């Protein structure tokens, strides 16, 4: 057994205390009142050997208590469990984890962090394996373990420093939890005995950092995390973030809401927000709070605008951008000649289920001519051969169509659309049918995948058509009746998709149109068709911006700094690495997207290290202890780690408490026995 603080063993001399006090106590003048001493003569005390034996148990317990406390303070540990002794030349694995999130853009902060990282790099021993990683919302490798191993021992520190000089803070948020867990996983596997793993976290430890993934994580026993916190010169920081526009907003003029976050260590609470070249207003946000305000009126007619906050000390999060949402024009082609006022027909219900919204204007074109730019085509029955060919080509180009089998005459049309020789469709016999199976994993039914909304069994289908799909059909049945026949099926045609509904939604066929499920089902279907997705205009750093054009010519993307990138239509843009207005141009169209900092990044008050400890992060000794590579100190550091892992002192102190309790009980029992004996005589 070894001791981390062996000088505490000198405290074992205190065991003389109980012995001395025990002897004194034996001779202690225990006074007993007596009525009169006139008939007594003093007799000298005799040595009572019997008494000494009686109290030997108490003496031993008291001595044991003192010795156990001394043992606990000396912090014992078993040296046999020490992993392979590290040589004087090192042998540990070190990850320097540098915070490069947006909050590190504060004045002088990243330079400090870089200096600390450089110091750690300089102090690595030849036997050490080191890596330099940065993190914001994800982990980035600057110098990997493989790079380190490939370099010569004399060059490693210099080369790593050179790489370190190229690192700069970005604009992303801080995912500290993800960074720590990913860094822990980045250690290469131990080839032999476990080696000490040290993660040096250099960060501003802002309270807005996300700590996801740390709770309940099992850390390898030989891993320690050393936190090196860098502090900014100033503490008053407030940030401003633009909120998603209201669904009714169609331009910047419709107003925008902003959130202003003030750091909890801020000394200021009055700020001013102002559109660039526009109106401004004062806002009051107490330290540690986030408040929402209706922004002042932006500049007239602008598709995008920039709002700035002033009044705090740090400018990195003082700008937010706003892009007006796009108004979508969606066309649905209804290939039938029904009267729109006939409640026995499908069209009557279809034109009512798609109301227009401020950001989405829906046009329902009824007629036998197919609109090429339609988002969705609805076929209420049989079509001519030419129409079928046109529709099939249209679908194959990547469109979506829904054919409703209102009668068995639609079989040739379905066969033509599927490019099949024939389609077996017949009127189903029986009274009525209910939906027996619904595939809630299909995107159309996915919104209903909740026990509150998943009950389709109340919709009666009075009339339906039985479609016997040929063997080997690629059709995916999304909903089936209770007799197993398909109710709604999806068949891929070229790049597009054809949905087959074997019953109509009008009252003569079913209760679907009057069901509460009908409007969300049709809306989901329209969105799923791909041409009518709700278009967002506000994005956070790190998010991909979906392409505004589903097909056609490539989209030209322009970043806020003027750099341009060309991406094919339909490909999302993932290069949003700085806040600002991103512009997409395609086929003569232009659209603006705003990308903003996450507001959590503005909460820059330091996070307590205890919070990491509470989440189970194995925090290590202070930086100097770990960073130094002197053999004695390294050995001591290793011993400290070993002791901290074994925690034998807890057992010693616990045993001391148990012994003290036993001493109290036995002592009390003896004292009571003596008292009883005195009063009984």
């Amino acid at each position: 057994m070894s001791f981390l603080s062996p000088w505490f063993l000198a405290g074992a001399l205190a065991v003389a205390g109980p012995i001395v006090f025990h002897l004194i106590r034996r001779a202690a003048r225990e006074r007993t009142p007596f009525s009169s001493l006139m008939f007594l003569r003093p007799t000298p005390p005799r040595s009572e050997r019997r008494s000494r034996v009686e109290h030997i148990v108490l003496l031993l317990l008291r001595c044991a208590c003192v010795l156990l406390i001394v043992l606990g303070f000396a912090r014992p540990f078993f040296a046999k469990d020490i992993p392979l002794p590290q040589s004087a030349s090192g042998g540990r694995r070190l990850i320097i984890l540098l915070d490069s999130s947006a909050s590190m853009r504060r004045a002088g902060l990243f330079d400090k962090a870089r200096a600390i990282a450089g110091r750690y790099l300089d102090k690595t021993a030849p036997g050490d394996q080191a890596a330099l990683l940065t993190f914001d919302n994800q982990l980035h490798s600057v110098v990997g373990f493989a790079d380190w191993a490939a370099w010569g021992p004399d060059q490693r520190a210099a080369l790593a420093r050179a790489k370190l000089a190229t690192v700069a803070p970005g604009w992303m948020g801080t995912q500290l939890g993800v960074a720590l867990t990913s860094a822990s996983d980045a250690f290469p596997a131990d080839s032999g005995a476990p080696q000490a793993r040290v993660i040096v976290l250099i960060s501003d430890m802002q309270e807005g950092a996300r700590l996801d993934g740390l709770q309940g994580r099992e850390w390898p026993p030989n891993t320690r995390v050393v936190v090196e916190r860098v502090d900014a010169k100033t503490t008053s920081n407030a940030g401003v973030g633009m909120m998603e526009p209201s669904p009714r907003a169609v331009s910047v003029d419709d107003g925008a809401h902003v959130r202003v976050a003030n750091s909890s260590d801020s000394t200021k609470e009055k700020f001013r927000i102002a559109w660039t070249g526009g109106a401004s207003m004062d806002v009051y946000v107490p330290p540690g709070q986030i408040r929402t305000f209706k922004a002042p009126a932006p500049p007239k007619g602008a598709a995008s605008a920039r709002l700035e906050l002033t009044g705090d000390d740090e400018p990195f999060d003082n700008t937010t951008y706003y892009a007006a949402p796009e108004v979508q024009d969606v066309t649905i082609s209804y290939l039938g000649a029904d009267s729109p006022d006939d409640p026995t027909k499908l069209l009557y219900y279809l034109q009512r289920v798609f109301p227009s919204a401020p950001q989405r204007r829906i046009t329902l074109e009824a007629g036998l001519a197919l609109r090429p730019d339609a988002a969705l085509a609805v076929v209420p029955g049989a079509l001519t051969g030419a129409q079928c060919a046109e529709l099939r080509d249209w679908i194959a180009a990547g469109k979506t169509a829904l054919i409703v089998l209102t009668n068995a005459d639609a079989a040739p049309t379905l066969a033509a659309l599927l490019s099949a020789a024939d389609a077996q469709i017949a009127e189903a016999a029986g009274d009525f049918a209910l939906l027996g199976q619904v595939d809630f994993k299909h995107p159309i039914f996915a919104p209903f995948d909740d026990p509150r909304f998943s009950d389709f069994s109340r919709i009666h289908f009075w009339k339906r058509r039985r479609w016997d799909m040929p063997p080997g059909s690629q059709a995916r049945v999304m909903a089936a009746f209770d007799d197993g026949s398909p109710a709604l099926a999806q068949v891929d045609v070229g790049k597009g998709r054809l949905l087959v509904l074997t019953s109509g939604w009008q009252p003569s066929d079913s209760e679907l149109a009057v069901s509460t499920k009908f409007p969300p089902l049709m809306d989901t279907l329209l969105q799923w068709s791909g041409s009518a997705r709700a278009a967002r205009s506000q994005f956070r750093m790190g998010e991909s911006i979906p392409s505004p054009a589903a097909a056609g010519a490539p989209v030209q993307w322009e970043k806020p700094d003027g750099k341009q990138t060309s991406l094919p239509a339909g490909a999302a843009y993932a290069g949003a690495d700085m806040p600002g207005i991103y512009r997409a141009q395609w086929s003569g169209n232009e659209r603006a997207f705003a990308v903003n900092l996450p507001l959590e990044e503005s909460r820059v008050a330091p996070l307590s290290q205890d919070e990491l400890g509470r989440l189970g992060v194995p925090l290590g000794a202070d930086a100097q202890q770990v960073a130094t590579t002197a053999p004695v100190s390294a050995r001591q550091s290793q011993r400290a780690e070993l002791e901290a892992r074994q925690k034998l002192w807890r057992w010693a102190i616990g045993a001391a408490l148990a012994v003290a309790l036993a001493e109290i009980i036995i002592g009390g029992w003896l004292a009571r026995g003596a008292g009883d004996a005195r009063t009984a005589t």
Partner: protein
Amino acid sequence: MEKGFVDPRAVMAIRNLELRARVIVEGFWNGMHRSPYHGFSVEFTEYRPYSLGEDTRYVDWRLYARSDRYYVRRFEEETNLRCHLLVDQSRSMSYRSLDYSKADYARTFAATLAWFLNGQGDAVGLLTFDERVRDYLPPRHRRGHLRQLMLALERSLAGKSTSLGEPLRRAADLARKRSMIVLISDLLAPIEELERHMGRLAAAGHEVVIFQTLDPNELALEFPRATRLQDAESQTEFYIDPEAARVDYQRRLQQHCDAVERICRSLGFDFYRLPTNRPLDLALFDFLRSRGRRGRVVRRRTQSTAVS
């Protein structure tokens, strides 16, 4: 403990002093009719044949039931007995090795006597003392007097030392008429002092009965180990090995008690030793026996004096 008598521990468990006394006396009276000592009573002299015209309240109906003759009991009110109870309340009386102290025992016994005598119509007075007189109630037999007497007895100990001189002198001064004086004390005082002050009472012609209350442990000196004993009154203390000191202590205590008894005999006092574990009704019986014997002795003395 003697069989057939009430365990003093049970009696002392009763908190109310008056109730304690009542329990003892009533128990004593109940046992009296079955007792071979039938006929003993304070100042009970004789049965007298009933004469026509006498108050029938004094007819002993039990005797009538047995003998079919009317007899009248002659009671003590005819003798006008005045009794002074002198109760030692000094600090040495606070010693206890049982559940109760010597003072508790002495108070209870004094209360028992008072209740008993009051029940017989005697005038009972009380004088409590330590190094000086604390309470004095002259002998009376009236309503409420017994209650006052009990209250005086229930007062806690305040004294430090024992001095029999002043209390006995006061008792002799206060009892001008010939009275019965009952002294209840541990008498742990120098024998010369005791002899001097008791002689004064004898000279006044009082009937004196002395009860020396001692704790059983004062007689046995039993301690589990060597210890420092502290005098309750003088606060002096010294180390005692009970095994070594017991024989000498018991011898000297016995000498003291014998000396006290000898002085009492020489003065014509009745002397009883009352270990605190002795049943109180037995102590009451001692008192009555003393009264019976004393009555005859006094009568003889009176006769001889008259003859001379």
